[in-house]
């Protein structure tokens, strides 16, 4: 899946997995890298949270 946000094209899942700090550091050419990262994360696949089972 590829998306384009503020002229940045990339895969939201790949970007989310990169982490915000690494993304911001690698995208010094962007005016607001943090905003772009957040917007991509909104489009990434939702990670299913598996709750540990409780024993009776």
């Amino acid at each position: 899946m590829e998306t384009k946000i503020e002229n940045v094209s990339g895969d939201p899942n790949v970007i989310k997995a990169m982490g915000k700090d690494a993304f911001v550091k690698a995208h010094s050419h962007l005016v607001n890298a943090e905003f772009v990262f957040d917007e991509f994360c909104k489009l990434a696949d939702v990670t299913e949270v598996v709750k540990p089972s409780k024993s009776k």
Partner: protein
Amino acid sequence: MAGSLHSCGYVNNNFGDAKCRALFAQGYKVVFVPYFTTTGTVNHMDLTSDPSLNSAYFSGLVTASQVTAWRPTPPILDFKTERADVVTQDFNNGLTKIRVSDGLRTVAFLFGENAPATKSKIESMNKDNWGFFLIDKKGNLIGARDSGTPYKILEPIRIQLGSITDKFVFPSDNTIQQNMVGFTVDPSFNDADITMIEGTSMTYDLRTLEGLIDADIQLNTAVTVTATGFAIVVDTLQGSINQPILVEGLVKADFTDVNQTTGATITITTVTETAPGYYTFVVPTMTASVLYKISCISTGFHINDYYVTGV
């Protein structure tokens, strides 16, 4: 019964005219094609399966592999083709003149207001065997009949290897900037084999067929290459030095990045179009001194690969 010799001079030389004969109009566009396929056969049009001669069919010929793809030109000007006088041998009796061969057929035309870069494109065809089809002003596609299997096969007309020239002409007080193109038809070609596919038999106006736009990926040296990034432009070379005509609107999905040492395809992290036609790449850490091939595919363009050296 007396013997006789085979009568080879009395076959197919009657002159009755069939009705509705195929007639050509003036040249409108030229379609250059590699003359041979990769298997060494002639790069012809095969209509034996009765394909639909529609937009998809012809655009497929333009977007095929560059090894066999059609290269339609823009509309041409002053198209002219002439066959030189027949070569004959005269004999001392002054009465006998015997035909040796046909004279050479030359083709010439102009591209009006065309970029100087066209010269290198045209003359690069001298390095290999090329042929051409002619699209005339009525949309007919003119080529050659295959003398071996003539039914529904249209071959390109073969160009004599090494004969293609392009003269770039500066504009004057009364002439425009232009490229004057000329070449010689291969001496083996027989004008009697010229034939066409009529425009009226197609569901597509062949006169509207356009070629791909060539572009080069070039490093944007204003941005330093790092281990995790570089910047490029995709330039058509049809603009000026300070106002290039760049390919705009490309996205990450249009590009591939391949490590030339391992053959591994690299997952590009992001591509940012920082200005129209200017692209900044963020990639996983590159290995120093390794070449990475950057390729780009975009509809309507043929974009040459570029190699980035890891730092």
